[in-house]
């Protein structure tokens, strides 16, 4: 546990990707099995625990620490786990468990026993170790390691191609003894069953119109609409039907109306949308169906789900990811024809000759159909996991901009937990400002520090973690689209709002009025 705590601390504090990888490689070298396997599971999120609540640990602290002092400390530190770790009042002699011991206890012990056990360990640990134990036990790790980065470290550790690891990843199980044996040259590559697992998706990069187009030949690329739904992977065959989200989350249960109709054997990539006769409704409508525990017949009737397929990864049992896109496209069309699924079609290809022509089509599509943009895929590209630079581009429509006034700020999460980094902003409506959205991104770390300071110095009200600020700071907010929404007080909802610029210079009375948003409605 001590080594793992050190690893977590280094990972949190190391900004550079390569240094993070170096820390992980070193850990994989030093740590024994099965510790390193559990560490991998925890880092990649394959294992997480929620049986200990930070509120329980907080109550242990409050038995000895004055609640006013605790609240002031928490307000200052921002992160509950870190506050508890720093302020923890008990000390006792004793050994800390190994990472495997702790992980298995967290997984297997009755939930009732865990909090007291974790409290005992905290009393034996240093502040940094306490922080790591709390992060682990409360299922709240966030140390800036993506699954991809951990896999990159594995590849470097074992001197194996990252692609090989990607291919088998979703068939592996913690504590990954077979994986580490293979990486250390002590065993064969682990075998996986392709039909039950998610295969990592291929993602695109935004195209830089000024730079990229010059070197791109229109004849080499296939253009498709970028549908405004959710990217999914359909894994079908042997009586199994699974719908995975882009991150590999199994979301089959949310779309039984679609899942029940799917026939065939293979793995397909596509966009899940709602609407009848393959006519997509707005993203708002799709949202009605997301993150619901139960799916009602009414929901399914009102917002029926379907898929526009983009690509094929497995045709029957054959892995076709290595074929060029042009070949896969033929396979995909034939596959879809063969099975005649009622809620699955092929996303059309946009014919075009030149980039200028496609630019016009893109603008027209955005204005008339509300399309998010266009995908450009090299016809000779293989289907590669991750976000390789070059083969696939997304050409999103230009963002819309509006000048809004900062109204409330809330502390962020993870590395931002001690900063006020979540901002609610609004527009003028007569003499008042009404909130129209929230943004968490678009500013640099340095700007974040300035914003945090501004918020602290201009607070006029506090509601729990939220601070209301003087209505004096203007943000230029960029967003992808605006929609009317009855759920918002202002009557509008923005998609993907982010802070484009902080207008320190602009007085609040020059910010936009609410009516200015009308021009952006689809």
């Amino acid at each position: 546990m001590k080594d793992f705590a050190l690893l977590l601390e280094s990972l949190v504090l190391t900004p550079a990707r390569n240094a993070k990888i170096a820390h992980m490689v070193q850990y994989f070298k030093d740590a024994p099995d099965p510790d390193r396997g559990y560490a991998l599971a925890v880092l990649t999120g394959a294992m997480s625990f929620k049986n200990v609540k930070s509120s329980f640990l907080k109550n242990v602290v409050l038995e000895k620490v004055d609640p006013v002092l605790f609240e002031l400390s928490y307000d200052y530190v921002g992160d509950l786990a870190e506050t508890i770790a720093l302020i923890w009042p008990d000390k006792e002699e004793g050994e800390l468990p190994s990472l495997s011991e702790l992980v298995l206890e967290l997984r297997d012990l009755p939930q009732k026993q865990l909090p007291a056990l974790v409290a005992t360990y905290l009393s034996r640990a240093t502040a940094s170790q306490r922080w790591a134990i709390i992060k682990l036990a409360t299922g709240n790790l966030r140390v800036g390691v993506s699954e991809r980065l951990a896999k990159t470290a594995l590849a470097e550790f074992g001197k194996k191609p990252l692609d090989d690891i990607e291919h088998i990843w979703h068939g592996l199980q913690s504590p990954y003894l077979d994986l580490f044996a293979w990486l250390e040259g002590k065993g064969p590559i682990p075998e996986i069953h392709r039909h039950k697992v998610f295969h990592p998706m291929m993602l695109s990069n935004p195209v830089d119109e000024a730079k990229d187009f010059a070197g791109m030949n229109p004849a080499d690329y296939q253009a498709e609409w970028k549908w405004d739904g959710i990217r999914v992977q359909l894994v079908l065959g042997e009586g199994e039907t699974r719908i995975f989200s882009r991150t590999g989350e199994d979301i089959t249960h949310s779309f039984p109306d679609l899942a029940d109709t799917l026939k065939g054997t293979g793995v397909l990539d596509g966009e899940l949308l709602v609407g009848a006769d393959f006519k997509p409704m707005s993203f708002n409508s799709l949202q009605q169906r997301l993150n619901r525990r139960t799916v009602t017949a009414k929901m399914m009737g009102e917002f029926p789900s379907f898929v526009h397929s983009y690509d094929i990864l497995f045709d029957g049992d054959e892995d076709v990811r290595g074929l060029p896109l042009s070949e896969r496209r033929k396979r995909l069309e034939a596959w879809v024809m063969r099975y005649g699924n009622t809620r699955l079609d092929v996303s059309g290809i946009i014919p075009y000759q030149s980039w200028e022509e496609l630019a016009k089509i893109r603008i027209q599509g955005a204005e008339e159909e509300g399309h998010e943009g266009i995908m450009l895929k090299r016809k000779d590209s293989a289907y590669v996991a991750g976000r390789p630079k070059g083969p696939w581009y997304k050409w999103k429509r230009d963002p819309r901009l509006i000048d809004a006034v900062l109204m409330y700020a809330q502390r962020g999460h993870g590395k931002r937990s001690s900063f006020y980094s979540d901002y609610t902003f609004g527009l003028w409506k007569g003499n008042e400002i009404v909130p129209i959205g929230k943004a968490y991104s678009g500013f640099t770390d340095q700007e974040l520090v300035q914003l945090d300071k501004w918020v602290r110095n201009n607070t006029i009200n506090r509601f729990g973690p939220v601070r209301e600020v003087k209505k004096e700071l203007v943000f230029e907010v960029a967003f992808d689209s605006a929609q009317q929404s009855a759920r918002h007080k202002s009557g509008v909802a923005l998609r993907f709002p982010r802070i484009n610029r902080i207008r320190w210079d602009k007085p609040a009375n020059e910010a936009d009025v609410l009516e200015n948003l009308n021009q952006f409605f689809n």
Partner: protein
Amino acid sequence: MSLLRHDLYIGPIGAYIDPPFPVKKALITHGHADHARAGHDSVLATHEAVGIIKRRYGEDAAKHYQGVAYGEKVQMGEVAATFYPAGHILGSAQILLECKNQRIVVSGDYKRRSDGTTVPFEPIKCDIFVTEATFGLPVFQHPDAHAEISKLLISVKNFPERSHLIAAYSLGKAQRVIKLLRLAGYDAPIYLHGSMINMCAFYQENGVDLGDLRKATGLPKGALKGQIVIAPPSATKEVWARRMDDPVICMASGWMTIKQRAKASGVELPLMISDHADWNELITTIPETGAGEIWVTHGREDALVHWCQTQGLKAAPLHIQGREDEQAEDAA
């Protein structure tokens, strides 16, 4: 007329303690910029603090200087002022004011751990104690500074291809870190940012042995590989730092206790070394002074005021102009 106002104005003699604006007569606890500034008519401070002020701002920073030794009583009309060691940096002092039967101590900045570069703090009995509260929250419990230095030395050993660039305030913290390194047996040359050299020389002149110090500029490429370099925090982010070989950015500060703060400052190796009292030192010092009334300034006043009140002490926060931005002060 009260002996001391909340803005640290000593009424009977028309003088201020650590005023953030130019005044006729200033009593100064120590040489940090948020306590000592240029432009006063006359300055009363320890000999070392006077030396520091002259080095930092020039001989003409004030019209008149009066230097005193620790424990030496200066009578000014009905008020007597005595400077006692505060253990914060070289020449730092608490100021005891006596008038009739009243005793007030203004702590300035202080710490309770001995560090080899300053005279250790001693608690002074008084009626009113004006305490700092830079780290006035119970989350601040500074670890042993020697252990932090070992952490640094392990990293220096593990990454021989990289420089270790320590961000440390150029007055006080830098010299303390150097001294701690020397005490830990590190006798290789330590390389300095140009702005540090003046103050290090002043410490050496005042009997603090800092060993072999060299300028970090004008060296052949690769010369700083595996070496320790100390620079003010602002310089670590500038072009200046590019001469380093893939430096491990370290920072010596009490703020490093909070991971997210360390991360936000781009620090890879935080060194929790502080020249201020941590929470436990604050709450042990207050009862040691025997004061029944506590004034809290400089930092997180609310928590310490609350604590004093739970102990049955009268307490009030002072919000002194020019001191609100302590967090940005790297001296911590």
